[in-house]
């Protein structure tokens, strides 16, 4: 057993170049993810920024009671789940389709151009992209013009003034912005497939659809599973910047996500303890979801994170 361990250490030192590349990441994670966990303690205190840390009085579960009894909290849970579910069910497969289609393009040059163009919007900040969206959705915007030209509506609609459109606006704008970027990881996974498999399948008489189904999709299945598990655990999260840009007083009842609720009811008033308490609960639920998704995926497909 001892020998086994020294063997490990030896391997560690033999790979020191590789290991040292990992170290910055570990340091980063420790500083930004592990040290802050200690400060979850302020969720149980009446923390005040003006006082030194840890000198604030303990108040137990007061802040937890505060938000559990707030109807706006439950509304924000509903909105978050609504928006996340749409994104998960209708949004998750899109980058996979996109990657598969891109993979079937024969002209390399065209493929690269399409790929580059598709992920460019990812690099536009939401503050700007959101502004563009608002213009498109406005009275004189392209969407109204298009719909009227097609005869689908007879007068301008202020899309962002009607709460019922909001979830769909977030879904479409997110898809528009992120599809190309999210597809990269699948494209990378597809690139790693042994071409020998395709050649063999071709000799056996498999057509393109069959090759795509039996080779490409099967090979990237673990990638899909991992990303799906992560997506499920993120279901209580939302894209704060996106919602912050697109929300207004008229669509607030469908727009206020959990993050926005924390911002409005916590940070704006400087209630750090309250915000931490909400986040604390959210993290615990996310952890539970992660385990659940992981377990389900393991049972169903055999692929899992841990």
């Amino acid at each position: 057993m001892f020998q086994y361990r020294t063997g490990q250490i030896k391997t560690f030192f033999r790979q020191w170049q590789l290991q040292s590349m990992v170290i910055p990441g570990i340091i980063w994670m420790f500083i930004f993810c592990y040290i802050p966990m200690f400060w979850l303690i302020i969720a149980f205190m009446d923390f005040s920024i003006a006082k030194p840390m840890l000198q604030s009085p303990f108040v137990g579960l007061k802040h937890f009671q505060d938000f559990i009894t707030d109807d706006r909290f439950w509304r924000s849970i509903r909105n978050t789940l609504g928006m996340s579910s749409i994104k998960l069910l209708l949004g998750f497969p899109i980058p996979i389709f996109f990657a598969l289609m891109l993979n079937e393009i024969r002209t390399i040059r065209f493929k690269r151009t399409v790929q580059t163009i598709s992920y460019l919007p990812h690099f536009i900040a939401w503050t700007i992209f959101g502004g563009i969206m608002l213009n498109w959705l406005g009275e004189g915007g392209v969407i109204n013009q298009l719909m009227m030209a097609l005869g689908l509506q007879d007068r301008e609609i202020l899309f962002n003034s009607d709460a019922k459109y909001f979830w769909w606006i977030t879904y479409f704008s997110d898809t528009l912005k992120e599809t190309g970027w999210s597809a990269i990881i699948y494209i990378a996974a597809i690139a790693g497939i042994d071409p020998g498999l395709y050649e063999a399948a071709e000799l056996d008489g498999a057509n393109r659809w069959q090759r795509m189904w039996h080779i490409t999709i099967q090979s990237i299945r673990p990638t899909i599973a991992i990303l799906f598990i992560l997506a499920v655990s993120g279901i209580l999260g939302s894209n704060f910047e996106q919602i912050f840009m697109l929300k207004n007083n008229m669509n607030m009842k469908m727009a206020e996500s959990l993050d926005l609720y924390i911002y409005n009811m916590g940070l704006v008033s400087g209630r750090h303890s309250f915000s931490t308490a909400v986040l604390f609960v959210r993290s615990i639920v996310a952890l539970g979801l992660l385990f659940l998704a992981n377990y389900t995926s393991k049972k169903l497909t055999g692929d899992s994170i841990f």
Partner: protein
Amino acid sequence: MKHNLIKLSMVIVLAMILTLGLAACTKTENNENKPSSPPAESTQQPQTETTPNPEQPAWQLDTSPVELSWFVGASWYGHSWGESLTSKYVTEKTGVNVKLEVPSGEANEHITLMMTSGKLPDLISMGSWENAVKKLWEGDHVYALNELAEQYDPYFFKVAGDGTLKWYRQENGNTYGVPNDSYSPNLMHETGMTAANQTFLVRKDLYEEMGKPDLSTPEGFLNALQLLKDKYPEYKGQPISPFFAQGNVPYGMSEYLQNLLAVPHEKDGKVYDRITNPDYLAWLKTFRTAYERGLINVDFLVDSDTQVEEKTNNARYFMMIREWTGMTAVNPMLAASGNPDSYYIAVDGPQNSNGDSAKLFPGNMDGWMVTMISKSTKNPERAIRFLTYLASEEGQRDLFLGKEGETWETVSGKPQLKADMAKLLETDIEKLEKEYGIMDTYWMMRNPVIINQWRPEKAPVIKQMEDFANGQADIDSGIYKGLDPLGDSEVAVSWARISQNWEEVLPELITAKDEAAFDKIFDNFLARRVNYGFDKVMEYRQAELDVRKAKMAE
């Protein structure tokens, strides 16, 4: 399993190395910090020996070069120090070089972060309404200015104005900040300059072509909108937006509209719940009717700032509940455009059923921003002396007018902006502020009492709006501004919930399908408000008002 254990222990060892490293870092930092304070004290001592003269500004005692960082709590503030003529002149004169810092986002959050880290800029200017200001004071992060002044520069008491010092005096007898743009009622009565910026604006050409319709009664308002819809639905190929309210629900459609309707702030010595005023509700119903008839859209409730700006710059609004100060750039531009009458003029807007003229907020004692000296500064004596200098007539003149002979000259005993500067002010403010740094470039300590006498006459298209606002300002109502509880106290949280709910309810009222629905939504809001703790909010407002009245009486 074993495999994992080894990996785990590796991680833990690494982590420990890291924490130790971090601890070492903080230790050395502490060590570095400690020796730095004694020298600061030792430099202070020789100066206290020369006992500063209360009749003379103390900045003259020491004009050796020193750098002070100055946080300006406005993310949009884009000026720098050291390039413009004025800043160079002041640095040369006083030895103080200012390093301006602005928040990347919200000033409140930015300064809160700095407070947590314990490192603050030397000078801090923050909006007087911001939560962080109170926290800076309560958390002992800033110097009591009166104590600093006694020690290093008693001349401060001469220039800081007794009124403002008293206004910001805390219960412990100390004053931690000096405001800019602070107006006392006496001053406003004397000069007629009220700093009122609320106006009701209409587009001049349309308004006159329509025969100057009456907009002060619900009927007149609706008729004018109908006429607009029938005769002028478009401008430059784009649909006209009939109405806009600045600051959306919480400001333009609430407080501001209530001021236009002259809704009282108190009744029989008690704070009045203005939202339930019958005139106000009648006007909200008018807006509802206008929406129902398709005379207005809800764009004014949903547009983003950029969309509003775009519509304003293209003169696509017909009428606006909007501060004239936000139009100082647009109006001259519109007046110089191809359609020179498409600029905005102030007229009588919605009025209450008695036909009273509006009662607009004037400037008040709170002012705009307060400037403080943080305890992180290594040069408190230079900081207070610099503030004293800036608050004095000499400093105000240096910052506002610049250097004598270059940007201003004395004409018949009075300082006056040179003609080329006055021209630049009208044609290219950007250049004026960047190259010369005069007028409103460095407004952090701006005192209207002193500088307004040097202001050149404004362009007529701006002056019309300003005069209108001055004429309708209710000088004694400054005391009612911002009575609401802020921060993280229980009553403040109640108020945050109520006001955030109102922001959602008002659009529902305007889009309600009929008056019955309107009444129902409003009654529901009133009931919800009580649940959220509205009674406590009213008590708070009353207490706050009483305190202010007592201070005013002093």
